[in-house]
């Protein structure tokens, strides 16, 4: 049969690109993730120094204190490349869309006790800005980090952060009116409870080391904020008081956090495995930024959950310590 003939004659000369083969142990069939990621970033023979940063090359591993002989060890366990990322998010968006429709068609907002609705807006609306800060920081990590394995998922993460900020915005417009967005912004700018968090976020904006920024934003701050807000506050508190709608309209967030935490932990683990010095930096950074994040979130925990807030936050800290322990970074 014709097919036999073709199968015999049309033999591939090679399986994948050499710049991919180099990272997967030779010329063998490579996954889409591997081809999309490995060896993508230009590495040598840069022409001009950036006019915005003449002390570094355009792509320069020296922007971080983390030292790795191979930056492609920082793999994403989710194996996201653009197509899998965007199709995964499109599916989640379908579910969110269905939730928004369900909430609106059943008039679920109207059935919510006013106090619960207001409390939800009070706590969640200022967090639009925290998510926006996370977006800026992950854009930074992508821009100034080294190696596509590390930088590409950071850009996905930045867009996810923007998605979160926009879902919160939609939630605000569903639960309230455009003024509630402004009220949330005013609280973010002026209300005493939010100032610790805002200060932390603004301080993170000027962190120069992309890896430290990764630890501060994605591990320490979001590692506490998401369990506290979407676990402790929305699921265990608001939802139980008649605010199921709020849980539905934020269902993306805890799901996304659990998913992306696997990436965050894997990156920290792989970087730590590189050297004692890396582990020392990671120990310093995680310790410092977890302490700061916990302190900054403490008044927000109280605002959201009253007396039990502090306990929920401590639990979140304990869980985060446990995540850290698994990465091999002993504190």
């Amino acid at each position: 049969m014709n097919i036999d003939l073709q199968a015999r004659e049309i033999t591939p000369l090679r399986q994948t690109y050499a710049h991919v083969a180099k990272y997967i142990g030779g010329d063998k069939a490579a996954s889409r993730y591997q081809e999309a990621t490995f060896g993508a970033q230009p590495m040598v023979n840069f022409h001009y120094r950036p006019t915005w940063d003449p002390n570094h090359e355009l792509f320069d591993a020296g922007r971080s204190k983390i030292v790795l002989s191979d930056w492609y060890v920082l793999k994403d366990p989710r194996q996201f490349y653009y197509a899998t990322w965007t199709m995964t998010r499109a599916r989640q968006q379908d579910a969110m869309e269905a939730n928004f429709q369900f909430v609106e068609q059943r008039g679920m907002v109207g059935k919510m006790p006013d106090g619960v609705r207001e409390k939800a807006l009070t706590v969640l609306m200022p967090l639009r800005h925290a998510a926006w800060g996370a977006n800026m920081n992950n854009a930074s990590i992508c821009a100034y980090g080294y190696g596509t394995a590390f930088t590409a998922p950071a850009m996905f993460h930045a867009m996810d952060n923007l998605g979160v900020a926009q879902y919160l915005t939609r939630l605000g417009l569903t639960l309230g009116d455009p003024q509630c967005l402004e009220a949330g912004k005013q609280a973010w700018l002026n209300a005493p409870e939010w100032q610790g968090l805002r200060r932390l976020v603004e301080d993170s904006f000027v962190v120069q080391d992309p890896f430290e920024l990764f630890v501060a934003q994605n591990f320490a701050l979001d590692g506490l904020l998401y369990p506290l807000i979407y676990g402790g506050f929305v699921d265990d508190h608001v939802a139980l008081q008649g605010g199921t709608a709020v849980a539905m309209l934020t269902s993306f967030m805890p799901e996304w956090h659990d998913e992306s935490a696997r990436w965050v932990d894997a990156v920290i683990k792989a970087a730590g495995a590189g050297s004692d010095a890396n582990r020392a930096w990671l120990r310093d950074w995680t310790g410092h930024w977890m302490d700061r994040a916990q302190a900054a979130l403490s008044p927000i925990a109280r605002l959201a959950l009253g007396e039990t807030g502090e306990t929920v936050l401590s639990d979140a800290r304990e869980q985060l310590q446990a995540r850290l322990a698994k990465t091999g970074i002993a504190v």
Partner: protein
Amino acid sequence: MSVVAIAPYEFTPRDVRENFPAPLLYIGWEDHLMFCAPFCLPLPPETPFGALSAAVLPGIYGYHPDFAKIDWAQAEWKKNGQPWTPDPAKSLAENGLVHKDAIRFRTPGLSGIKGSFS
């Protein structure tokens, strides 16, 4: 004019003389664009200018049927765009050539494959 940068922006040029085993000389043959561009060659400064036509150029331009027909006494030279009369007996340096000078020559009467400047 000067580059606009956020901080001092001054680097040693990547192509300073010391980085090369010999100064670079660019050489072009006018009206023979079958050779797509002028050449770049590191040539010791003590090389006699006459050695170009005798020893260097045959290796790089000899493929062209016009090359064998060149009357070097008739060749018209330019250095960095200006008409120029080199002394074949003197060295490149004595002829005033320094790192990254560009010279070209025209060979009157020879205008490439079928007169197409190729």
